[in-house]
């Protein structure tokens, strides 16, 4: 009898538990939905606004003056590739090496200093970084240049890439490092040949996110790469970039240019999204091949 009683009691508790469980699950689901709505909205809206202007010419032609139909953004596309590419060449080695040091020596004064400065740096508004690059590169050169843009982007890129890499290196099991040292490997050989490969998936993701972030930077471009309506691959000359082109088109009073701004925005978003998906595929493929999981 008492057993039957307790069973009935537990059934009530079970119902309550089930109710709370369903409630919490719905709440988390709802919150997730809210989080992805902006992304979906932006993608859908930009695709609708910008997608209709896309054509082969848009990717292969130089911009046309106001009122002249056609024209494209090939100069900004190539410009962004160059500026971001050079920024990566500067930022990635610095970030990786610094991350290796910080992960290895988290408590030394230099390690603490590096970590603290990257934290501060990641909080500095990008427009200030742009001004810094202006002072560092543009003023001595006496004119705007692609290189100045790259320097600005590199400075912005270092903190997130460094911190992600550091975190990823910290996730590498300590005994992997010991295994290498126990075979007589030096510290830097261990870092380069064991730790970096082991953390590569995470590092690649971090780098991709860093690229995605700087690819859309507009403010620093205004002081540095400046923009250029013509096709340019000379690093010492001003160069057009996608976000800066969007900015110029979007603040213009012309309907025609507004449409081009949407289309350029679409290209930028697609490129960033594409980069992210590529990074995921790359790491997924590598993981599968090495069965790292």
């Amino acid at each position, binding site marked *: 009898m008492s057993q039957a009683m307790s069973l009935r009691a537990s059934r009530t508790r079970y119902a309550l538990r089930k109710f709370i469980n369903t409630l919490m699950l719905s709440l988390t689901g709802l919150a997730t939905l809210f989080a992805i709505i902006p992304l979906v909205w932006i993608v859908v809206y930009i695709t609708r606004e910008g997608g209709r202007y896309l054509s082969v010419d848009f990717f292969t032609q130089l911009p046309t003056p106001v009122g002249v139909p056609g024209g494209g953004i090939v100069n900004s596309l190539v410009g962004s590739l160059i500026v971001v590419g050079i920024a990566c060449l500067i930022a990635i080695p610095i970030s990786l090496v610094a991350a290796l040091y910080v992960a290895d020596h988290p408590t030394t004064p230099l390690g603490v200093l590096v970590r603290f400065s990257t934290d501060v740096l990641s909080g500095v508004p990008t427009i200030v970084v742009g001004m810094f690059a202006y002072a560092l590169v543009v003023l001595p050169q006496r004119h705007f240049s692609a290189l100045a843009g790259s320097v600005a982007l590199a400075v912005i890129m270092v903190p997130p890439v460094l911190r992600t890499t550091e975190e990823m290196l910290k996730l590498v099991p300590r005994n992997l490092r*010991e*295994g290498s040292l126990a075979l007589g*490997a030096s510290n830097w050989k261990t870092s380069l040949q064991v730790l970096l490969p082991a953390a590569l998936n995470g590092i690649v993701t971090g780098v991709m996110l860093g690229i995605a972030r700087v690819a859309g930077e507009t403010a620093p471009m205004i002081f540095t790469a400046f923009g250029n309506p013509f096709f340019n691959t000379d690093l010492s000359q001003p160069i057009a970039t996608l976000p800066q082109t969007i900015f110029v088109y979007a603040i213009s009073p012309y309907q025609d240019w507004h449409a081009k701004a949407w289309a350029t925005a679409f290209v930028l978003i697609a490129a960033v999204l594409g980069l992210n998906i590529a990074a995921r595929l790359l790491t997924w493929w590598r993981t599968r091949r090495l069965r790292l999981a």
Partner: protein
Amino acid sequence: MSTNQSLRIFTRALASNETADAPTTTVKMRVTNLNFYYGAFRAVADVSLDVPDRRITAIIGSSGCGKSTLLRTLNRMGDLVPNARVEGDVLLDDESIYAPNVDVVDVRRRVGMVFQRPNPFPKSIYDNVTFGPRLLGVNHRADLDAIVEKSLRAAALWDEVKEKLHESGFALSGGQQQRLCIARALAVEPEVVLMDEPASALDPIATYKIEELMHQLRDEYTIVIVTHNMQQAARASDFTAFMNMNAQRAGTLVEFGPTKEIFTNPHQKETEDYITGRFG
């Protein structure tokens, strides 16, 4: 433990070496009055121990008694710990491995190590085994191929992996991964192999395979194994060192002798209590 006492223990151990184990054993590594400090904390106190050549020496003792710390002083892996400090000395073939002009890399090449959890590098089986030799400058494909086969055979893994040398080390089972790590350690032809609880993450069958392997390696290598599995020490070793914490929580060597003797008739009460599970 007083120096006198430790001296007595190892003299007795030496004496019994000669009586219990018919062919006289020579000393491969000699630990003398070793103290190991983590900052101000003394983790190992006054340990003196002679590791016999081409024999398996097991170090047993409860958790935290300093056995792994002691093991890591034998190839200077203890140096990696920040603020760590070593007093006393460790001799390898009568040469101090802590002398100022000694290159740690040489020490670690001669004294290899296998860890508690299998830790293959995120590389192919082949690249795992050749990692050490490549560091030493072996680059010819044919030489490396020969080393890979020899090491994997020595680690009793060759037949299981010869068809998939270029697949990832992670594709192997836990026991195979551990044998891969042993092969990787053997590839640089060390003289001593340290094993830090090499089977604690493995199932019994894989454990027996490792123990069997140790037995085969015994002809060519001096093996020192830390284990908290007493049965394993009893099964797999020739000599056993029992460590225990003293009142200051520092690890001391209580007794060292032939395994057969330690497990049937230990001389120290502390050893007896630990071995029979009547600890504390």
